[in-house]
Protein backbone atom coordinates (compact mmCIF):
# COMPACT_ATOMS: atom_id res chain seq x y z
CA UNK A 1 0.00 0.00 0.00
CA UNK A 2 2.84 2.40 0.92
CA UNK A 3 4.70 1.50 -2.27
CA UNK A 4 1.63 1.81 -4.53
CA UNK A 5 0.85 5.22 -3.01
CA UNK A 6 4.47 6.32 -3.44
CA UNK A 7 4.47 5.21 -7.08
CA UNK A 8 1.22 7.05 -7.89
CA UNK A 9 2.36 10.21 -6.09
CA UNK A 10 5.63 10.08 -8.04
CA UNK A 11 3.58 9.74 -11.22
CA UNK A 12 1.47 12.83 -10.39
CA UNK A 13 4.69 14.75 -9.65
CA UNK A 14 6.34 13.52 -12.87
CA UNK A 15 3.34 14.45 -15.03
CA UNK A 16 3.25 17.86 -13.31
CA UNK A 17 6.94 18.47 -13.97
CA UNK A 18 6.56 17.35 -17.61
CA UNK A 19 3.48 19.49 -18.30
CA UNK A 20 4.87 22.54 -16.48
CA UNK A 21 8.05 22.85 -18.54
CA UNK A 22 10.38 22.32 -15.55
CA UNK A 23 12.19 19.43 -17.27
CA UNK A 24 13.24 21.59 -20.22
CA UNK A 25 16.50 23.46 -19.49
CA UNK A 26 15.90 25.93 -22.35
CA UNK A 27 12.65 27.03 -20.70
CA UNK A 28 14.03 27.01 -17.15
CA UNK A 29 17.07 29.11 -18.09
CA UNK A 30 14.88 31.61 -19.97
CA UNK A 31 12.93 32.22 -16.77
CA UNK A 32 16.14 33.61 -15.24
CA UNK A 33 17.19 35.57 -18.33
CA UNK A 34 15.50 38.88 -17.57
CA UNK A 35 18.03 40.71 -19.75
CA UNK A 36 17.40 38.44 -22.76
CA UNK A 37 14.76 35.94 -23.92
CA UNK A 38 12.67 36.04 -20.71
CA UNK A 39 9.91 33.40 -20.39
CA UNK A 40 7.83 34.01 -17.24
CA UNK A 41 6.11 30.57 -17.34
CA UNK A 42 7.89 29.18 -14.27
CA UNK A 43 6.35 31.75 -11.97
CA UNK A 44 3.04 30.01 -12.76
CA UNK A 45 4.52 26.62 -11.78
CA UNK A 46 5.66 28.06 -8.46
CA UNK A 47 2.32 29.81 -7.89
CA UNK A 48 0.24 26.69 -8.65
CA UNK A 49 2.45 24.46 -6.52
CA UNK A 50 2.62 26.85 -3.58
CA UNK A 51 -1.12 27.60 -3.39
CA UNK A 52 -2.06 23.90 -3.44
CA UNK A 53 0.71 22.83 -1.03
CA UNK A 54 0.03 25.66 1.43
CA UNK A 55 -3.73 24.96 1.55
CA UNK A 56 -3.24 21.16 1.57
CA UNK A 57 -0.67 21.20 4.39
CA UNK A 58 -3.11 23.25 6.51
CA UNK A 59 -5.50 20.31 6.45
CA UNK A 60 -2.92 17.52 6.60
CA UNK A 61 -0.41 18.65 9.23
CA UNK A 62 -2.89 19.10 12.12
CA UNK A 63 -3.81 15.40 11.82
CA UNK A 64 -2.32 13.16 14.52
CA UNK A 65 -0.38 11.02 12.01
CA UNK A 66 -0.07 10.28 8.29
CA UNK A 67 -2.46 7.60 6.92
CA UNK A 68 0.29 5.07 6.18
CA UNK A 69 3.03 6.09 8.60
CA UNK A 70 3.74 6.61 12.29
CA UNK A 71 4.41 10.34 12.29
CA UNK A 72 5.10 13.35 10.09
CA UNK A 73 8.81 13.54 9.28
CA UNK A 74 9.43 17.29 9.28
CA UNK A 75 12.88 18.92 9.34
CA UNK A 76 13.78 19.87 12.92
CA UNK A 77 16.63 22.25 12.07
CA UNK A 78 15.76 25.92 12.59
CA UNK A 79 19.06 27.74 12.17
CA UNK A 80 19.74 29.82 9.07
CA UNK A 81 23.47 29.11 8.98
CA UNK A 82 26.40 29.28 6.58
CA UNK A 83 25.81 25.68 5.41
CA UNK A 84 22.24 26.42 4.32
CA UNK A 85 23.07 29.73 2.65
CA UNK A 86 26.36 28.57 1.11
CA UNK A 87 24.89 25.28 -0.12
CA UNK A 88 21.87 27.02 -1.64
CA UNK A 89 24.10 29.64 -3.31
CA UNK A 90 26.22 26.84 -4.82
CA UNK A 91 23.11 24.93 -5.96
CA UNK A 92 21.92 28.04 -7.83
CA UNK A 93 25.22 28.28 -9.72
CA UNK A 94 24.88 24.65 -10.86
CA UNK A 95 21.23 25.18 -11.80
CA UNK A 96 22.17 28.27 -13.80
CA UNK A 97 24.96 26.43 -15.64
CA UNK A 98 22.98 23.29 -16.50
CA UNK A 99 19.32 24.35 -16.53
CA UNK A 100 18.38 21.19 -14.60
CA UNK A 101 17.36 21.01 -10.95
CA UNK A 102 16.90 17.59 -9.26
CA UNK A 103 13.09 17.88 -9.27
CA UNK A 104 13.11 18.53 -13.00
CA UNK A 105 15.79 15.99 -13.89
CA UNK A 106 14.48 12.89 -12.06
CA UNK A 107 11.17 12.71 -14.01
CA UNK A 108 13.09 13.70 -17.17
CA UNK A 109 14.96 10.35 -16.94
CA UNK A 110 11.75 8.87 -18.38
CA UNK A 111 12.33 10.60 -21.72
CA UNK A 112 15.41 8.40 -22.21
CA UNK A 113 17.50 11.39 -23.24
CA UNK A 114 21.24 10.82 -22.63
CA UNK A 115 21.79 14.41 -21.43
CA UNK A 116 19.53 13.75 -18.44
CA UNK A 117 21.40 10.60 -17.42
CA UNK A 118 24.73 12.46 -17.65
CA UNK A 119 23.36 15.24 -15.43
CA UNK A 120 21.80 12.90 -12.83
CA UNK A 121 25.01 10.82 -12.65
CA UNK A 122 26.96 14.04 -11.99
CA UNK A 123 24.48 15.05 -9.27
CA UNK A 124 24.89 11.66 -7.57
CA UNK A 125 28.69 12.10 -7.72
CA UNK A 126 28.25 15.58 -6.22
CA UNK A 127 26.10 14.22 -3.37
CA UNK A 128 28.72 11.55 -2.57
CA UNK A 129 31.51 14.14 -2.76
CA UNK A 130 29.64 16.44 -0.36
CA UNK A 131 29.05 13.59 2.09
CA UNK A 132 32.78 12.78 1.95
CA UNK A 133 33.73 16.44 2.52
CA UNK A 134 31.28 16.44 5.42
CA UNK A 135 33.09 13.55 7.11
CA UNK A 136 36.53 15.14 6.60
CA UNK A 137 35.16 18.49 7.77
CA UNK A 138 33.65 17.07 10.95
CA UNK A 139 36.81 15.15 11.99
CA UNK A 140 38.92 18.12 13.27
CA UNK A 141 35.87 19.39 15.17
CA UNK A 142 35.44 16.01 16.86
CA UNK A 143 39.15 15.95 17.74
CA UNK A 144 39.16 19.45 19.20
CA UNK A 145 36.16 18.57 21.34
CA UNK A 146 38.04 15.56 22.70
Amino acid at each position, binding site marked *: MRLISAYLIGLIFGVGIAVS*GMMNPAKVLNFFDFAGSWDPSLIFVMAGGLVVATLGYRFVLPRPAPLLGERFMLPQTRAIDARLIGGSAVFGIGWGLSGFCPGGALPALGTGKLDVYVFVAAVVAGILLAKMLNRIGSRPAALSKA
Partner: protein
Amino acid sequence: METVFTPWQSLGGGVLIGTAAVLLMLTLGRIMGATGILAGLVTPVSRDDFAWRLAILLGMVSGPLAVMAVTGRMPEIVVPGSPALLIIGGLIVGVGVTFGSGCTSGHGICGMARFSKRSIAATLVFMATTTATVFIVRHVVGA
Protein backbone atom coordinates in the same frame (compact mmCIF):
# COMPACT_ATOMS: atom_id res chain seq x y z
CA MET B 1 16.90 31.09 -27.73
CA GLU B 2 13.20 31.97 -27.33
CA THR B 3 10.75 29.56 -25.69
CA VAL B 4 6.94 29.76 -25.85
CA PHE B 5 5.18 31.34 -22.83
CA THR B 6 2.86 28.63 -21.41
CA PRO B 7 0.97 30.12 -18.44
CA TRP B 8 -1.87 27.54 -18.37
CA GLN B 9 0.24 24.40 -18.78
CA SER B 10 2.71 25.71 -16.23
CA LEU B 11 -0.03 26.57 -13.74
CA GLY B 12 -1.62 23.13 -14.26
CA GLY B 13 1.76 21.42 -13.85
CA GLY B 14 2.35 23.43 -10.68
CA VAL B 15 -1.03 22.35 -9.28
CA LEU B 16 -0.09 18.68 -9.91
CA ILE B 17 3.31 19.18 -8.21
CA GLY B 18 1.57 20.75 -5.19
CA THR B 19 -1.00 17.93 -5.14
CA ALA B 20 1.78 15.32 -5.09
CA ALA B 21 3.45 17.17 -2.19
CA VAL B 22 0.20 17.20 -0.16
CA LEU B 23 -0.56 13.52 -0.89
CA LEU B 24 2.94 12.41 0.13
CA MET B 25 2.58 14.24 3.45
CA LEU B 26 -0.95 12.82 3.95
CA THR B 27 0.06 9.20 3.28
CA LEU B 28 3.73 8.71 4.23
CA GLY B 29 4.25 11.93 6.20
CA ARG B 30 7.20 12.97 4.06
CA ILE B 31 8.45 16.15 2.39
CA MET B 32 8.31 15.91 -1.41
CA GLY B 33 11.91 16.89 -2.09
CA ALA B 34 13.80 15.52 -5.09
CA THR B 35 17.12 16.05 -3.28
CA GLY B 36 16.04 14.07 -0.22
CA ILE B 37 14.55 11.26 -2.29
CA LEU B 38 17.70 10.91 -4.42
CA ALA B 39 20.13 11.23 -1.50
CA GLY B 40 18.19 8.54 0.39
CA LEU B 41 18.55 6.19 -2.58
CA VAL B 42 22.29 6.83 -2.90
CA THR B 43 22.98 6.23 0.79
CA PRO B 44 20.00 4.21 2.08
CA VAL B 45 19.29 3.97 5.82
CA SER B 46 17.00 0.90 5.71
CA ARG B 47 15.28 -1.45 3.29
CA ASP B 48 11.83 0.05 3.85
CA ASP B 49 13.20 3.57 3.45
CA PHE B 50 14.92 2.60 0.19
CA ALA B 51 11.75 0.90 -1.12
CA TRP B 52 9.36 3.89 -0.95
CA ARG B 53 12.01 6.19 -2.45
CA LEU B 54 12.53 3.78 -5.35
CA ALA B 55 8.74 3.51 -5.85
CA ILE B 56 8.34 7.29 -6.00
CA LEU B 57 11.32 7.61 -8.38
CA LEU B 58 9.78 5.00 -10.70
CA GLY B 59 6.52 6.97 -10.59
CA MET B 60 8.36 10.19 -11.48
CA VAL B 61 10.13 8.51 -14.39
CA SER B 62 6.75 7.24 -15.66
CA GLY B 63 5.49 10.86 -15.77
CA PRO B 64 6.79 11.86 -19.20
CA LEU B 65 5.79 8.42 -20.58
CA ALA B 66 2.22 8.98 -19.35
CA VAL B 67 2.22 12.41 -21.00
CA MET B 68 3.38 10.81 -24.25
CA ALA B 69 0.68 8.12 -24.00
CA VAL B 70 -1.99 10.84 -23.76
CA THR B 71 -0.68 13.55 -26.08
CA GLY B 72 1.38 11.41 -28.46
CA ARG B 73 4.43 13.59 -27.88
CA MET B 74 7.37 13.28 -25.49
CA PRO B 75 7.83 16.47 -23.42
CA GLU B 76 10.47 18.68 -25.00
CA ILE B 77 14.01 18.80 -23.58
CA VAL B 78 16.41 21.28 -25.13
CA VAL B 79 19.82 21.60 -23.47
CA PRO B 80 21.44 24.89 -24.47
CA GLY B 81 24.83 24.12 -22.85
CA SER B 82 27.55 21.60 -23.69
CA PRO B 83 27.85 18.11 -22.09
CA ALA B 84 30.83 19.45 -20.09
CA LEU B 85 28.57 22.15 -18.64
CA LEU B 86 26.00 19.47 -17.70
CA ILE B 87 28.64 17.46 -15.83
CA ILE B 88 30.14 20.47 -14.04
CA GLY B 89 26.66 21.87 -13.34
CA GLY B 90 25.46 18.48 -12.05
CA LEU B 91 28.43 18.09 -9.69
CA ILE B 92 27.88 21.62 -8.34
CA VAL B 93 24.13 20.94 -7.92
CA GLY B 94 24.88 17.70 -6.01
CA VAL B 95 27.28 19.41 -3.61
CA GLY B 96 25.01 22.46 -3.18
CA VAL B 97 21.78 20.61 -2.43
CA THR B 98 23.54 18.34 0.08
CA PHE B 99 24.95 21.26 2.10
CA GLY B 100 21.81 23.35 1.49
CA SER B 101 19.51 20.44 2.54
CA GLY B 102 17.19 20.82 -0.43
CA CYS B 103 16.34 22.23 -3.82
CA THR B 104 13.43 23.71 -5.73
CA SER B 105 10.86 21.08 -4.72
CA GLY B 106 11.89 20.61 -1.06
CA HIS B 107 12.62 24.25 -0.15
CA GLY B 108 10.83 26.13 -2.94
CA ILE B 109 7.47 24.36 -2.70
CA CYS B 110 7.21 22.18 0.44
CA GLY B 111 9.30 24.34 2.79
CA MET B 112 7.77 27.64 1.72
CA ALA B 113 4.29 26.08 2.02
CA ARG B 114 5.10 25.37 5.71
CA PHE B 115 6.37 28.96 6.09
CA SER B 116 9.81 27.59 7.06
CA LYS B 117 12.22 30.53 7.44
CA ARG B 118 15.12 28.27 6.40
CA SER B 119 13.37 27.34 3.16
CA ILE B 120 12.40 30.93 2.37
CA ALA B 121 16.03 32.00 2.89
CA ALA B 122 17.37 29.07 0.82
CA THR B 123 14.93 29.77 -2.04
CA LEU B 124 15.77 33.49 -2.17
CA VAL B 125 19.49 32.68 -2.21
CA PHE B 126 19.41 30.05 -4.96
CA MET B 127 17.03 32.09 -7.14
CA ALA B 128 19.51 34.99 -6.85
CA THR B 129 22.63 32.96 -7.69
CA THR B 130 20.85 31.19 -10.57
CA THR B 131 19.84 34.58 -12.02
CA ALA B 132 23.41 35.89 -11.60
CA THR B 133 24.88 32.74 -13.21
CA VAL B 134 22.54 32.91 -16.21
CA PHE B 135 23.34 36.62 -16.61
CA ILE B 136 27.10 35.99 -16.54
CA VAL B 137 26.94 32.99 -18.90
CA ARG B 138 24.67 34.69 -21.43
CA HIS B 139 25.54 38.37 -21.28
CA VAL B 140 29.06 38.69 -19.80
CA VAL B 141 30.86 35.62 -21.16
CA GLY B 142 28.42 35.88 -24.06
CA ALA B 143 27.60 32.31 -24.98
